[in-house]
C-alpha cells in the first residue's frame, strides 16, 4: 500500500521554524509505523531524527503525534492510521515539551515532575527477612499504575498544560504518585502531600479525559486523578479534625 508520510522536520542549527517534509513509501498494512520510519531513515534520509528502542510498546521511547493523536509509533500499524480514501499520515513530535529536533522533544521537565512526587516506596519500618505480605487484592489496586512506561503521551495531550498551566504536574506524575499512595506497603502519604496538594500539583486537572484517551497502556488516568484528589481531601479532613 502506497502511503504519504508528512513528517515534521526541524534542525535547531539550521531552521528557524519547523516545516513538513513528505515521503512516499510502499508499506504493508500490518507494518508498524516505527518500521516505516526506520526504513525512511535507512533508505532515504538518515538525517531524520526520532527515538526508538524496544519496538513493541514497552519502553516508551517513540511517542509522537500521528494524525493529531498521541501514539507509540511501534504500536501503530499502518492500517490503523490510513483509510481507503486518505493515504496520508501526518507525524509530529509530542506537544507541550520543547522541540529538540524532528520528532524528538526534551523530556527533562516531564521527568522532573515525575521525580518531584517521590516515586519510590517510602516505609521507615525495617522489612521482615522474607517478603512483606500483600494480598492479591491489594496488589491489584496498583496494577494499572505500575504499568506506566513514562512515554509522556498523556503529558502531551493534556489541554491544561497546553493552554492554561504549563507548570501543572501532569497526568503521569499523578499516576506515579498514586501507584505508591495506593500501595499497601507504602507510608509516604504525608511526605508526598505537599507536592500534590499545591496550585500546580494535582488540582489543575479539569477532567478533559484527553490523557486517558491517548494512554498506550490503557490506564484510566482521569479516574485515578479524581480518586487521588478524593483521598487527599479525606486525608486532610482526618488530620485537621
Amino acid at each position, binding site marked *: 500500500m502506497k502511503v504519504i508520510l508528512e513528517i515534521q522536520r526541524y534542525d535547531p542549527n539550521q531552521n528557524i521554524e519547523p516545516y513538513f517534509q513528505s515521503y512516499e513509501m510502499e508499506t504493508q498494512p500490518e507494518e508498524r509505523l516505527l518500521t516505516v520510519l526506520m526504513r525512511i531513515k535507512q533508505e532515504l534520509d538518515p538525517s531524520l*531524527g*526520532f527515538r526508538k528502542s524496544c519496538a513493541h510498546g514497552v519502553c516508551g521511547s517513540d511517542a509522537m503525534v500521528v494524525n493529531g493523536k498521541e501514539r507509540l509509533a511501534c504500536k501503530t500499524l499502518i492500517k490503523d492510521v490510513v483509510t481507503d480514501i486518505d493515504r496520508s499520515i501526518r507525524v509530529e513530535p509530542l506537544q507541550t515539551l520543547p522541540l529538540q529536533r524532528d520528532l524528538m522533544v526534551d523530556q527533562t521537565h516531564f521527568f522532573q515532575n515525575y521525580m518531584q512526587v517521590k*516515586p519510590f516506596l517510602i516505609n521507615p519500618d525495617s522489612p521482615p527477612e522474607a*517478603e512483606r505480605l500483600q494480598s492479591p487484592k491489594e496488589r491489584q489496586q496498583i496494577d494499572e499504575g505500575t504499568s506506566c512506561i513514562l512515554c509522556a503521551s498523556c503529558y502531551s495531550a493534556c489541554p491544561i498544560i497546553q493552554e492554561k498551566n504549563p507548570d501543572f504536574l501532569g497526568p503521569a506524575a499523578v499516576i506515579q504518585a498514586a501507584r505508591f499512595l495506593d500501595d499497601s506497603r507504602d507510608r509516604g502519604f504525608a511526605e508526598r502531600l505537599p507536592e500534590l496538594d499545591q496550585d500546580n500539583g494535582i488540582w489543575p486537572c479539569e477532567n478533559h479525559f484527553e490523557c486517558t484517551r491517548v494512554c498506550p497502556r490503557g490506564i484510566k488516568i482521569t479516574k485515578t486523578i479524581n480518586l487521588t484528589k478524593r483521598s487527599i481531601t479525606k486525608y486532610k479532613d482526618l488530620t485537621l479534625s
Partner: protein
Amino acid sequence: MIKEYDAVIVGAGGAGLYAALEASKKAKIAVLSKLYPVRSHTGAAQGGIGAALGNVEEDKPEWHAFDTVKGGDYLTDQDAALVLAEEAVRAVYDLEHRGLPFSRTPEGKIDQRRFGGHTRNFGEAAVRRSCYAADRTGHMILQTLYQQCIKNEVSFYNEVQLLDVLLEGKRCTGVIAYDLATGEIITFKAKAVLFANGGVGRMFRVTSNAYANTGDGQALLARRGVPLEDMEFFQFHPTGIREMGILITEGVRGEGGILRNSTGERFMERYSPTMLDLAPRDIVSRAIVTEIRAGHGIKGDGQIDDYVFLDASHLGREVIESKLPEIADFVRTYLDIDPVESPIPVHPTAHYAMGGIPTDLEGCVIADEKGTKIDGLYAAGECACVSVHGANRLGTNSLVDLIVFGRRAGIHMGRFVQESNPHPVSPDSAASIEAQIKALKKRKNGPAPEMIRKRMQNSMMAKVGIYRNGRDMAETVEELRELRQMYREVGCPDLSQAFNTAVLEVFDLGHRLENPYITAVWALNREESRGAHAREDFPERDDTNWLKHTLAWLEGEDIRFGYKPVDISRWEPKPRKY
C-alpha cells in the same frame, strides 16, 4: 570536555542500576546510558526472576543451581551457579523490599510459576520457581531500580553513548563518550569502569532484542585487546511472534500453554517426555526447527519463515488477562488475534548471548587464561560472562544474574576505588574519535550502511542460527570479512551537531559487525554440539576435547584462541535428558 569520577558505569539496565546503587554508597559515580534509563531493554523482560523461595511448593537453591548447570549443558561454572542460586533468594526479597510489585499468592506471598528447565529434586518434574509480576517482571525491576537510584541521587548522563574505552596496560582509566544532544565528545576519567551495556541480539534478522542492543561494550573491549568468552553460544528463544520476533514469554507455557504442529500434535512429547513444553530453550527451539524442516510447520513448506502454533486458548480468559496481559495485548495489536480464542503463530527468535566479557565472581574482568585481572575494569549483566549460563541460559536466570552479579560488581568496585589513586589520562585521548567523526562526515559515495546491516543479519540468521554446519559458517565468516572491509568506506551524510542520530547509527553498525564476526569464527572453531551450539557436522557433545570455555582475542581480522577450564567441582557432567 573532561569529567572526572571515581567510577563510571556504562548502561542503565538492571545490571547497571543495581551496581550503581551499591557503588554510589562509597564513591562518586556516573552512569552513562545511550537511552533514558527507563527505556533499557531490561524493561522488556516478561516472565520472571528465578529464586528457590519455596512459596508454593518445596524448592531449594541447590536444585536451582543444578538446573542451571544442566541447562547450560555443563559449560556453566558450578561455583558461579551456586552463588547465583543462593543469592537469588535474597535478591528477590531485596527487590520486594524496595517496592517491586510482585504478583501474590492468596496468603500474600510472592507468587511463583513454572519455567523451562527448572525442576524439583534434580530433574524429577517442573517446579514453580519463577517469581513474577504478571508478564512485566523486567519492567517492574527496571522501574524499581530507577526509582531507588532517584532516591539515592545517582548521577546519570542520559543519551550519552560510549565510543571508546581507555586502557593502559592492565588498567582501565576511563571511557570516551558522545553526547547526543550537543555532538560533543566527553572524556570520562575514572578509577574504574563497569560495563553493563546489555546484549547483541541485533546481529540477527529476527530478534526479541531492542534496536539499542548492539553489543557496543563487547565490541570496543575486543578491539582494545580484552578477550571475549564463549561467544559461540547464542540463544534462540522458541517462541517469538512470527517474523517480527517479538517475544512470547515462556511463562505462557509455564501457565500451561502447548506447542502444536500442523497436525495439531503436541510434538514436545517426542522430544522431551518429562519436561514437555517446558524443556530448556535450546531443546524446544531445535524441536520447532526440526518439525518445520520435516514439513510439519503450519505452512508446511519447510522454509525459514514457517512456524508452529503456541496454544493458550484452553487457559481461559481469566488466567490470560491476569497473568499474561502483555502477551494478550501484543498478540491482539500485532496479529489481530485473540489468544483466548486462537493459537499464536510462533517461531524461534534470536534472544540472548550466553557469552561476553569474561569476569570472576566479583565482576572483575579477566584478561587471560590464568585469570589475570585488568585493574578497574568490571562487567555485569548480559554483556558479561561469569559464566552462569554456560551453553544455554535458563529462563528467569538473566534477571537473577543482573541483580546478583550487578550487586557484587558494584560492591567490589566501590571498595576498589576507595583504595586506589586516579591515573592520568592523556589530554588528547579523544583525538582519535574526533578524527573518526570528522572523516565520517567527509566521506562521500560510500556503501549504504543499510545494505551491510541487512546482509549481516540475513547471513547470521540463515547460517549461524539454531542449526549450524562448517560449510555455512565458513561462508558467513567470509561474507562478514567482506562487509567489514566495506564498512571502512561508509560515510555519514548528516553533518549536523545537535541530535545527530545518523552518526551514532554508523558507529553502532561498526560495533555490530564485530560481534557476529567473533560469534561466527568462534562457532566454526568449536567442533562439537553443546547447548545452543548445535552442529550438524559434529552432532555430539565432546567432553574430552571441548569441556572448556573459549577465550578469544580479536587481533585485527584474525582471532587468537585460548581456553579456560570449567568449574565442575560439584556435579559430574552427564548426558542431558529431559
